[in-house]
């Protein structure tokens, strides 16, 4: 069983190597990509089932027990997020492959897209699975560097600025992460998370706080927590549709996952975390208000993404089992729904030729299927029942209400942010799907990767991949019972910390 744990990391890397070596054959590249991601999804299912039944699964790489070697740990939280991420990655890959076939022809080869895509997937898997702070850094670098390449690939002059913002901010955050690792090592002499959990308690409480804040900032940048979020709405919207979908779905959640993992494992608290509560309020409101101000549908979605990161931060800030499990459930649903919405936005843009809301209209009549594909994830994001978003939001509200008056007040902000989200999405609906149908606009930036105004050249698999993701998010709603039970147990374990440490270190501290 533990042999499987390394595969979600190593298989995509191997796949990336193969797609480079065989870059002359586009068919090989596509097959390798899909097969690898299918395998990762299947492994993730096994890991989820097994870790739920038996507690955290640990692979000691090279046979070296922690803290000498690097341990990969699949517990409920990491396995669940791994599974959802793998499914999203797979669907987006299918979408991207067919978009490329439609736009450039079946025989077009690319030396970069497939390898980068698989490397990104490997980085994401490693980030979820690693039990080592430095390996987490390496995972982030794999993931982020691949994302840099994907976002700047074939950019036009108009969009290169977005890439620069993204890359520069991410680089600063990476260097701060490295700084944090240096500081952690200086103070404790270890980078193994489970080991660290014990050693950090030997420090004076004030210095523990320093380390906690440092890691909060580092992962806060990745997770787009206000006021560290600015880069996101300026960069994601300029990425090609599938890439933006992948980023929006995965990257911020990996950042949040790292925050969730480190804060619960290393910096135990008994009370709700006031600072993070405040930041979560700011994140929810700044994101939602930002969405209302936008005219570009992708920027609007990006701001909503930020806003809903605040929901997850709220769950973490409550800092009890209910809150943490709510945050985990929210993250799982959020990965699918944001990716879906960006894919739909890509389909919309292909049809209308623009991302500007005030220049489209009438798609409900001309593209009713697209209207359904938009409506379901939109309702999910707004948390309208009976969607997955509602279930996850309910979990957060319950946690907030149970934890005391202050967290109840923040739960009120969750409510307000939900309303603003709904308003923003209703406006998209009104602007895009209602109103008079308008003719497709010509491609205003023909240099870039995004081909628009080509509805007739949109192949069915692109819709199918999007519909598949919609189905995943509906499945999360239908199977909310078992899923929330899993996240519930995950939350208890995260707060308890002992199962993780015992599994990694062999003995309880």
């Amino acid at each position, binding site marked *: 069983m*533990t042999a499987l744990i*390394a595969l979600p990391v190593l298989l995509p890397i*191997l796949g*990336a*190597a*193969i797609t480079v070596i065989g870059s002359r054959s586009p068919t090989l590249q596509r097959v390798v990509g899909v097969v690898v991601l299918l395998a990762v999804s299947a492994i993730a299912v096994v890991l989820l089932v097994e870790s739920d039944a038996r507690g955290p699964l640990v692979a000691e*790489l090279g046979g070296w027990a922690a803290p000498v070697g690097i341990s990969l740990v699949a517990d409920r939280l990491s396995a669940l997020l791994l599974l959802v991420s793998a499914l999203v990655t797979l669907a987006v890959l299918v979408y991207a492959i067919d978009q490329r076939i439609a736009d450039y022809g079946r025989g077009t080869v690319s030396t970069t897209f497939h*390898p980068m895509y698989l490397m990104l997937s490997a980085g994401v898997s490693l980030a979820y699975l690693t039990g080592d702070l430095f390996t987490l850094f390496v995972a982030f670098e794999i993931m982020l560097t691949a994302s840099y390449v994907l976002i700047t690939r074939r950019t036009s002059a108009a969009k290169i600025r977005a890439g620069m913002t993204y890359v520069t901010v991410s680089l600063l955050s990476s260097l701060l992460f490295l700084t944090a690792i240096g500081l952690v090592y200086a103070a404790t002499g270890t980078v193994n998370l489970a080991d660290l959990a014990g050693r950090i308690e030997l420090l004076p409480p004030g210095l523990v706080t320093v380390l906690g804040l440092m890691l909060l900032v580092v992962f806060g940048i990745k997770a787009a927590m206000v006021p560290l979020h600015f880069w996101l709405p300026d960069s994601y919207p300029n990425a090609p549709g599938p890439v933006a979908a992948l980023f929006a779905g995965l990257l911020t959640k990996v950042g949040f996952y790292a925050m969730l993992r480190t804060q619960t494992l290393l910096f135990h608290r008994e009370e709700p975390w006031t600072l993070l509560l405040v930041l979560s309020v700011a994140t929810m409101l700044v994101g939602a208000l930002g969405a209302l101000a936008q005219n570009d549908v992708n920027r609007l979605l990006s701001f909503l993404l930020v806003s809903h990161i605040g929901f997850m931060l709220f769950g973490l800030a409550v800092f009890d089992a209910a809150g943490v499990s709510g945050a985990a459930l929210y993250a799982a649903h959020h990965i699918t729904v944001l990716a879906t919405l960006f894919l739909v936005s890509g389909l919309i843009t292909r049809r209308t030729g623009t991302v500007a809301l005030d220049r489209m209209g009438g798609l409900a009549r001309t593209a009713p299927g697209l209207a359904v594909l938009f409506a379901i994830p939109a309702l999910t994001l707004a948390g309208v029942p009976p969607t997955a978003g509602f279930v996850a939001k309910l979990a957060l509200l319950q946690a907030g209400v149970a934890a005391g008056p202050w967290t109840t007040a923040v739960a009120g902000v969750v409510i307000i942010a939900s309303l603003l989200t709904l308003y923003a999405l209703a406006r998209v609906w009104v602007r895009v799907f209602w109103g008079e149908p308008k003719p497709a606009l010509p491609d205003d930036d023909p240099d870039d990767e995004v081909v628009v105004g080509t509805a007739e050249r949109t192949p069915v698999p692109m819709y199918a991949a999007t519909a598949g993701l919609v189905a995943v998010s509906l499945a999360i709603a239908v199977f909310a019972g078992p899923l929330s039970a899993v996240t519930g147990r995950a939350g208890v374990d995260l707060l308890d910390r002992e199962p993780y440490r015992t599994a990694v270190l062999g003995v309880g501290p």
Partner: protein
Amino acid sequence: MTIFDEWDAPREPWMLPGACRRGRTRRLLLEVAARTLFPTMLVFSLYLLLVGHYSPGGGFAAGLVAGLAFVLRHIAGGSVGFGMPVPVRPPVVIGSGLAIAVLTALVPLLVGSPALSSAKLAVDIPLLGPVSAQTSLFLDIGVYLLIVGVVVDLLRSLGAGIERDMREAEEWLP
């Protein structure tokens, strides 16, 4: 002060392969040096690769030394002498290096050991006698290949690629 103002703002591009400041005469000395140093550095890099387990060195350092040998060759010979000794695209070298490293990691799974386990391999090679090596040497070889590939790829893009752009922009004629 004028000297300080001028010295680092040359009127001609730097480090153009095979070009000297005035005219098209190759820099003989540099070229000879490169031709002599190139194989020496490659051998030295192999040495670093093999001793890495016992003293400073290892796949990284070895790969970088080999890479610098290619850099030297590029500067001396330019696109004319540029390239791998064998006709293979740099991305393939990189990919192969990565593949070797990952396979080294995966193979132990087939025999039931944890991923990335290493073991001591003892092989009796005729003439040389028994040779023993740690299997992690394969990882080092992968790293070595990959780094060489990366450096050559950088020469291809940042080196030859930019020179091509300059040629097309008519900023520089070889």
